[in-house]
């Protein structure tokens, strides 16, 4: 046993030496460590996921910001703005510098928009309606739209301003005068005005950011000096890291059980409502769901209360709140939070009787996206609920890639699809237009294939009418219409939940009066407060 004993002893001694040698000295600066799903896309023109949004909102700035704790927008890089028909004019601040030291001007705004349109990635579709953009003078920029679009200013939340001079100095090879439009450079480097600079970036591992001392706004001292945004950590790893004090904020993708366990161990739970919901979408072209009465029967049979219980993390915190209709509470046109939807089996039976189809003749296909295990639980819940009405169903697991392909044809689209959809700018137009306008049918957002003239008219009214009161009226009417014809079961209003150590205070994710109401914006590091020096 000599060799074995020696080997074990050597291993133990080596481990101890390594642990001692690797022990790092106490830091003089505060470090915030958080994680998100890979990959971290640093190029702001390609940003679309949550991790990308966190990077974008911290490394870059936009002309406007969402107001905290209230609807509406507030000035940021733009001091003010005005609209005259299809022309939108923004007056820019004159005291903003990029991290490179270059001053920010209207030319940079023009370049940023043109770059986004040219690359055609990420959320560039928000700017497809922009016919031209020009720098009126050094600090004034004018956007000319092809057709009226009321929520255009809120689209500016997704136009990060890029340092034109720096990008032009780093153009890569490509077709035409603009080469690759700086894609190669911006995939690993930053060219923004943001409160945080990029120290290093590995899209699969982590992005390290440091406070930008020259930021045009004051950054509080307590804000983290360094931020390490890690990608693709497993729930077991996150749980262990937080327990070891080596991680500060988890991603929102932890299973409720892990969030619950972390909360039990003393972690605080942070929340963000980003203006989105969980939608159970019914294919309105397939029998028996082409009959509105059948859809209403299913909507009334759905157990909204159990759905909420399934996503509860603790007694007080949940990954969603009861839905009141198609529009999440707090958004323009939403019903009040007291009007929450509830199961009504009597109404469900009445509607089923009015349905022209016999439930025995059908087997409803309930799909769930393979990458979202939570949806399987909802599929089982629906199967049980519909069974109580005498409606048979089968559950089908579909990888996202397959789902996105199948929904392009109504005959291939399952009877029921489950999706999480949110308003990318916080405006109801970016939530509802893609889902319910008949011209947009057959995308991942619109497996309902809804074709309703009233819905189309109201969506159009909400897009073109610039009067806020008139828009609100249109969206209220739209909400009522969508409830009446039930193309969707409005499961719940989504809320992201994050587990965090007590080393960090995040007012935008813990105090409703400081919340932004836009996904990812709550992770503005400059507004966070580290509680101690690690």
């Amino acid at each position, binding site marked *: *046993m000599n*060799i*074995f004993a020696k*080997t074990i002893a050597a291993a133990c001694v080596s*481990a101890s*030496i*390594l*642990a001692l*040698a*690797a022990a*790092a*000295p106490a*830091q003089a600066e505060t*470090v915030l460590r958080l994680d998100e799903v*890979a*990959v971290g*896309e640093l*190029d702001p023109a*390609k940003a*679309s*996921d949550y991790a990308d949004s966190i990077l974008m909102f911290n490394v870059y700035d936009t002309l406007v910001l969402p107001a905290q704790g209230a609807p509406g927008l507030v000035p940021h890089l733009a001091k003010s703005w005005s609209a005259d028909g299809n022309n939108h004019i923004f007056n820019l601040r004159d005291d903003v510098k990029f991290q490179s030291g270059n001053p920010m001007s209207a030319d940079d705004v023009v370049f940023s928009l043109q770059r986004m349109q040219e690359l*055609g*990635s*990420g*959320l*560039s*579709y928000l700017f*497809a309606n922009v016919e031209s953009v020009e720098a009126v003078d050094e600090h004034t920029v004018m956007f000319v739209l092809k057709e009226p679009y009321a929520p255009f200013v809120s689209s500016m939340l997704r136009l990060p301003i890029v340092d034109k001079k720096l990008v032009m100095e780093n153009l890569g090879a490509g077709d035409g005068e603009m080469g690759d439009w700086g894609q*190669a450079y911006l*995939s*690993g480097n930053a060219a923004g005005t943001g409160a945080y600079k990029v120290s*290093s970036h*590995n*899209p*699969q*591992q*982590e992005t390290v950011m440091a406070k930008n001392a020259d930021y045009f706004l004051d950054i509080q001292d307590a804000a983290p000096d360094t931020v390490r945004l*890690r990608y*693709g*950590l*497993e729930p*077991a*790893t996150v*749980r*262990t*890291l937080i*327990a*070891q004090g*080596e*991680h500060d904020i988890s991603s929102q993708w932890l299973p409720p059980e892990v969030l619950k366990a972390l909360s039990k161990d003393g972690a605080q739970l942070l929340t963000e409502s980003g203006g989105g919901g969980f939608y159970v979408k019914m294919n309105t072209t397939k029998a028996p769901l082409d009959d509105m009465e059948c859809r209403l029967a299913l909507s009334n049979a759905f157990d909204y209360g159990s759905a909420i219980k399934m996503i509860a993390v603790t007694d007080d915190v949940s990954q969603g709140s009861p839905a009141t209709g198609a529009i999440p509470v707090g958004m323009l046109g939403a019903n009040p939070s007291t009007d929450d939807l509830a199961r009504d089996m009597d109404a469900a039976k009445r509607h089923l009787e009015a349905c022209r189809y016999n439930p025995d003749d059908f087997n409803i296909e309930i799909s769930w996206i393979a990458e979202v295990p939570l949806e399987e639980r909802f599929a089982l819940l629906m199967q049980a609920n519909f069974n109580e009405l005498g409606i048979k169903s089968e559950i089908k697991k579909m*990888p*996202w*890639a*397959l789902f*996105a*392909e199948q929904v392009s044809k109504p005959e291939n689209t399952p009877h029921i699809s489950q999706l999480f959809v949110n308003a990318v700018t916080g405006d109801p137009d970016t939530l509802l237009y*893609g889902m319910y306008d008949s011209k947009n049918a057959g*995308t*991942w*957002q619109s497996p309902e294939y809804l074709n309703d003239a009233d819905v189309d008219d109201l969506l159009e009214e909400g897009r073109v009418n610039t009067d806020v009161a008139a828009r609100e009226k249109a969206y209220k009417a739209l909400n009522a219409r969508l409830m009446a014809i039930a193309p969707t079961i409005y499961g719940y209003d989504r809320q992201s939940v994050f587990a965090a150590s007590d080393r960090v205070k995040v007012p935008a994710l813990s105090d409703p009066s400081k919340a932004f109401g836009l996904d990812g914006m709550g992770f503005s590091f400059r507004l966070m407060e580290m509680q101690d020096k690690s």
Partner: protein
Amino acid sequence: MHLPHFLRVTRIIMSPVVQLLVKRLSISIIVLIGVSMLIFTIARIIPGDPARIALGPNATAEQVANLRDKLHLDEPIYIQYAKFVSDFAHGDLGISLYTNRPVTTDIAQFLPATLELVFVAGIFMIGFGIPLGILSARYRGRVADNIIRVVSLLGVSAPSFVWAVILMLLFAFFLPLFPIAGQISDTLPVPPRITGFLLIDSLLAGDFKVFASAAHHIVLPAFALALSGIGQAARLTRANMVETYDKPYIEMAQSYGFPEKRIANRYAFRPSLIPSLTIIGLDFAAMLGNAFLVEAVYAWPGLSRYGVQVILRKDLNAIVGTVLVISATFLVVNIIVDLLIAFINPRIRYAGRS
């Protein structure tokens, strides 16, 4: 050229080891061409539009169509393959839709981390597996043998990711002895990239603190990855050695009163090593593929983890690039093992001399 020199060169060229090397290299090239064709086709057949997945759910149909056009996805598959071969000949594997960077850049960044992990796991596999096998054979039928056999069986039967989670729970959660995320401590600077292998780069930079941290970080993931191989190596070594113990020359050595340790380490072990080495070589190469779950659990920024992500996102260029690199590494390891066996086995080494 002088005749003796010519004869010497001819003898080297004609030697069985060189012939073996040439034969293996030729087969490897054919295998790689076959793999590239196969993976190129399979990646395009599996369901899902790569352009739609890459651009995300909010992209318009026009954006998707533009990207499909850019990727030549609407062209016949043989034309796409011809373009791939042409680009590959110029060292270009295309752009990854997952990271939006050249695939070659991604591979260059992520491959060293995986190789480093697999290499250290290989050292653990050999360093623990073979001695355990020798011990087990030497004390066959006794308590030590039984314990080692049970432990080896456990190692072989549980997959690496199970060990990854168990080791994390034991040595990071309950007993916080080892770090569990990344390659080095957050607080340390990354040494200048020379080889891409953090352990080597930190030594080259003379930064022993970084080396210690990197070594500390690699222990758990490498051990989790190696455990199955350790069990396999121990079982194989034991089985082969027990068989060798029945050979007459061992009985002769025992009857002459040679020390047990000498018999085990010299006369029984060496002939038993050859069959074990083949399997260990295969295990070593297989760890490249198995590393992905260990890399996921320990947030290890390696190629295996990247490979899984690109497959899930149907990132065509990156799938082909990653599979080719892993296949090439697999083939290289196999060639090295073949050469090692040829070197150890005198029947191969001296086959041509007769």
